[in-house]
């Protein structure tokens, strides 16, 4: 008996160790980037164009580019993703087609990000002749975040109790009226969470935009959706590996802005989710 308890203590120690091996580095990464990146942040850094071959100046065009790309991606992915989620939660029956749709979503989520880049290049840039442009990049990112939006929205819709639908239908509302006026309003926080998570994902990805939109160095703002643009993650990649002798401060500063942006979105999503859980009436 004593022996088995000693085994248990040893086992639990190793399990704790495994957990700490993940959690501590995560904490350290965030702390280091904040500690070294924060001093680089000032008004000039976030509002000026990069200067002297990106060794001084700011990252304003990259921030704007990322903003455009993320907005474009969500404009494309949210309507399609939401309707797809409504289909799965309200219309789909337990049959082969539904099974295949779910499998397709899983696969879409698993396609390597660089393969999305290839796809975007082949379809949007070359075949549809959009060229390397904000439009091509946004659509590529949009398809990439589709699974995130579908999955979270579907969960939100399915968590609305069946009785809500039944009451509405029994009062004579049609199926669509029930979805539109009863199911959707009750699922909004969950859909919002999914949308924000999708935004965060789109903002941080580099590989899908490499050949579809990202400009190495473009010291002016894009004028139309057919222009190339700089983007934060690609800019971080460029100044970390492609341009020699960039001040470490600028690298950390860029990493800080990108990380803050992405984590802020995730934080908002988590807050909405927690608040909603507490307020839930059913």
């Amino acid at each position, binding site marked *: 008996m004593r022996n088995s308890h000693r085994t248990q203590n040893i086992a639990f120690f190793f399990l704790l160790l495994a957990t700490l091996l993940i959690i501590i580095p995560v904490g350290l990464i965030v702390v280091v980037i904040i500690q070294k990146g924060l001093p680089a942040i000032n008004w000039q850094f976030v509002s000026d164009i990069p200067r002297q071959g990106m060794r001084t100046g700011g990252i304003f065009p990259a921030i704007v580019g990322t903003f455009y790309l993320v907005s474009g991606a969500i404009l494309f992915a949210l309507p399609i993703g939401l309707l797809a989620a409504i289909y799965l939660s309200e219309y789909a029956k337990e049959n082969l087609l539904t099974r295949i749709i779910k499998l397709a979503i899983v*696969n879409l989520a698993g396609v*390597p990000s660089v393969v999305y880049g290839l796809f975007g*290049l082949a379809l949007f840039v070359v075949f549809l002749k959009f060229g390397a442009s904000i439009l091509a990049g946004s659509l590529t990112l949009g398809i990439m975040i589709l699974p995130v939006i579908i999955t979270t929205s579907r969960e939100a819709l399915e968590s609305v109790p069946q009785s809500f639908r039944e009451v509405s239908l029994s009062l004579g509302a*049609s199926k669509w009226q029930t979805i539109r006026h009863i199911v959707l309003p009750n699922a909004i926080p969950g859909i919002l969470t999914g949308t924000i998570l999708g935004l965060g994902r789109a903002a941080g990805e580099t590989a899908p935009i490499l050949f579809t939109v990202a400009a190495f160095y473009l010291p002016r703002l894009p004028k139309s959706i057919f222009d190339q643009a700089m983007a934060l993650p690609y800019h971080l990649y460029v100044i970390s590996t492609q341009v020699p002798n960039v001040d470490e401060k600028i690298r950390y500063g860029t990493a800080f802005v990108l990380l803050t942006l992405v984590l802020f979105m*995730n934080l908002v999503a988590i807050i909405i989710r927690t608040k909603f859980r507490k307020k839930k009436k059913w």
Partner: protein
Amino acid sequence: MRKLKEFIIEKLILICGLASIFFVVLIFLFLLKEGLAVFKTVGPFKFLFGKSWYPISEPAQLGILPLIFGSLLVTLGAAIISIPVGVGCAVYIAEIAPAKIKEILKAGIELLAAIPSVVLGFVGMITLVPLVKSVFHLPTGLTALSGSIMLAFMAMPTIVSVAEDALYSVPKTYKEGALALGATHWQTIWRVMLPASSSGILAAVMLGIGRVIGETMAVMMITGNAAVMPNSILVPVRTLTATIAAEMGEAVVGSEHYFALFAIGIVLFIISFAINVTADLFLHKRQ
């Protein structure tokens, strides 16, 4: 009028429901359209098993075996690290951690999942790469090992969250039965919980590995990008993904090189498809 409007809306919903299938097929078709052309210049066998990748020499040598080995080596290293650590962490979170700490740990894992891969690559370049260099006295720290460590870390959120779900889905009665028979908590976990959730944990591992094989930016930044056959884990390697990302910018649209990079994309797509379908089968077996 209302009937017509609802008819249109419901058809629209159906179309969007089918969109995922449409996009998966579309991705595959466009990869095929651009990638298959490479087999006019190099046979499929020579492409997959050719030992030299010199895409811009004259004549171009388009053998991706070094890249496949690069990906395999890095993935294997990452799997060896991430499977025990990831599953261990999942067990700790699901079974041992007190409720409050559990929430903090889960938030930490979510945080890791949210960090963009280019940021992790950047941090790896600055911290991990010099560390590997000095520990093993190497000329460069940009090695397969550095890549493995970084990728192991990036596979963790997937492994932990899927394995944790698998553990939660084990019926409570199993655990209570084992404890009632006098087993310790650990014996219950080891002999009952883990075997009962094995297919879910297997799926977790596979999805984690899928994530590793497809990862691009971090790997490109810290593995050194040498497209030669690796003979140890302490040399620079280049993976399939990094090759596409690093070379597509320079490849001329419609050239052999361009087609070859798309053909690598086909290989990656098929690998990820196989992994996801199998993992999905395991997950459904459980239910």
